[in-house]
């Protein structure tokens, strides 16, 4: 590209102005990201000025192979997968249904879309607190609804499995709007002529969906599936707000945080096991990478089969 704004020393101006942005990016994001692997082979703590030793694979051995702690880690690993599976599938299905309904453009559609999307921008603290109240066990709204059906729940204070299930529900409630708007933007790229043609050919609603909407929605399907899978494998903030660090409910993201920074926020003087936490982050990262790549490959093949090219 021809540069018009001068030569010689003046040619350096764009480089100079580019530097601050790149500098912060490398310093705060890329550098630390790459260093995570390095730290995972050390016994680093959160203590300022404490020496750091190279300990090889010890963190990984401890994380994966040693006694009760590693059994707990496998528990967290399993819960991470279960959490991700339910969140992804349910959020995907509900997001699609909501998008199809909103996209009918009936009166009030925009209002509904705004309402469903709103939790996305509220953040984990507000989402979590709103639901803690809604799940108030002593006569709160959800307790009353359940009692109509003769059911009862201790909600977030109940058995770990029960509390865990409620976090899944809140997570879906909080993020369904995002899935929905991606589907809506996909639906709007489908040419109206195709619906017209299908109608002339006498297709019913189900046939239109199966032969026009669903195949042409493939790009949004792929985006949503990948985003939901990767997002839910790494999500844990709602666990922090809704449950705290509770045995039998932790997912990997929360384990990393708890090991690296202590279970509660606190003083930096306690010996936080940051090397160990770094090893756990690498494990989570590899899990996300393997699952993400596998799904991506599968989705790409499916896309080629459906859309050609």
């Amino acid at each position, binding site marked *: *590209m021809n540069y*018009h*704004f*001068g030569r010689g020393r003046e040619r350096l*101006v*764009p*480089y100079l*102005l*580019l530097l*601050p942005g790149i500098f912060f*990016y490398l310093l*705060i*994001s890329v550098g*630390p*990201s790459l260093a*995570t692997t390095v730290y995972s082979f050390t016994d680093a703590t*959160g203590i300022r000025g404490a020496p750091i030793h190279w300990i090889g694979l010890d963190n990984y051995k401890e994380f994966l192979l040693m006694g009760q702690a590693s059994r707990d880690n496998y528990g967290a690993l399993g819960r991470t997968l279960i959490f991700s599976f339910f969140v992804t599938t349910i959020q995907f299905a509900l997001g699609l*249904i*909501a998008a199809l*309904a909103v*996209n009918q*453009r*009936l009166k009030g559609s925009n209002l*509904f879309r705004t309402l469903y999307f*709103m939790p996305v*921008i509220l*953040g*984990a*603290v*507000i989402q979590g607190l*709103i639901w803690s*109240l*809604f799940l*108030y066990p002593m006569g709160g*709204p959800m307790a009353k609804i359940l009692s109509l059906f003769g059911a009862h729940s201790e909600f977030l204070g109940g058995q770990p499995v029960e509390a865990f299930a409620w976090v899944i529900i809140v997570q879906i*409630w909080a993020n369904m709007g*995002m899935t929905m*708007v991606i589907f809506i*933007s996909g639906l709007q790229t489908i040419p*109206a002529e195709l*619906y*017209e043609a*299908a109608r002339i050919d006498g297709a019913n*609603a189900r046939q239109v969906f199966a032969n026009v909407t669903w195949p042409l929605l493939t*790009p949004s399907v792929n*985006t949503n599936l990948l985003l939901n899978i990767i997002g839910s494998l*790494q999500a844990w*903030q709602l666990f*922090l707000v809704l449950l705290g660090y509770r045995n039998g409910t932790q997912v990997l993201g929360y384990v*990393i*945080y708890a090991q*690296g*920074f202590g279970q509660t926020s*606190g*003083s*930096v003087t306690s010996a936080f096991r*940051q090397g160990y936490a770094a090893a756990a*982050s690498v494990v*989570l*990262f590899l899990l996300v990478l393997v699952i993400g790549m596998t799904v991506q490959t599968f989705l790409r093949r499916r896309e080629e089969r459906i859309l050609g090219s």
Partner: protein
Amino acid sequence: MNTSLKSPLRLSKPVNWGRLGTYVVLLVFAVVYAGPLLMLVNTSLKTLPEFMKNATALATGLNFKNFVDAWNKANFPRYLTNSLIYTLSATLVYIITAVFVAFPISRRYVKGAGVLLTLFVVALFLPPALIPQFQLMLRLGLYNNPVGYVMLFLVNPIGIVILVNFIKTIPKELDEAAALDGCGYFRFVTSVIFPLIQPAVATVAVLHAIGIWNELILPTIYLTNKNYYPITRGMIVFQGVYGSNWPTLAAAVLIMTLPMLILFLFLQRYIISGLTQGSVKG
């Protein structure tokens, strides 16, 4: 545009997936989404004894005492001010640096522009930076330091990608013409390009600001001094103390929610388009 919007509707009339079914679906979702919010509002207007007696009964009147209590007890003015300072300063600095990164990359005015852009896209697939980032801040003496905390938010790769793509739609002839008129690079970017990319800047700024405002983990890790807490962290502390006093807690949550809600209602278009663009590109 109009016909394309209307045709699915016309199509749906003869088949049984009609208006009615759609409205039922919309309303069911609406109840699930509005329910928890209405419960929050209702609770914030009740007294504690009223709440204990019957948690779901409608508030008998407009009782704003909870809001006054929350405002005074929760140290809200301080937390809100902190959040505002962090969000505005980090977003401002980020946007300025981001435009000067995105423009030359988009125009290929710097060598290795393609590599740089790839660097920003790849970031989305790197391991989390949490631990080494903490070690770095500790060594730099920026732990429990508001300036260090703001520094953590000077990065947002998706924003760069959105800006680069938007700048591509600005004709390159403009650069040449401005240069011929003797306009320098810095002035060109700040006074010609910047106004032209306002929509993209607004989108990126709003997304970035929301992320900072809602951040809970980083203040939990990096800030120990209560005077530095942003509203998210302050809210968790408040919950710890007033956790059983739901009317006051609900009022506090509402106070914290309102700024975001208002922002969202006004800037919805930018937020949604930014998020969908970012996700599709990413």
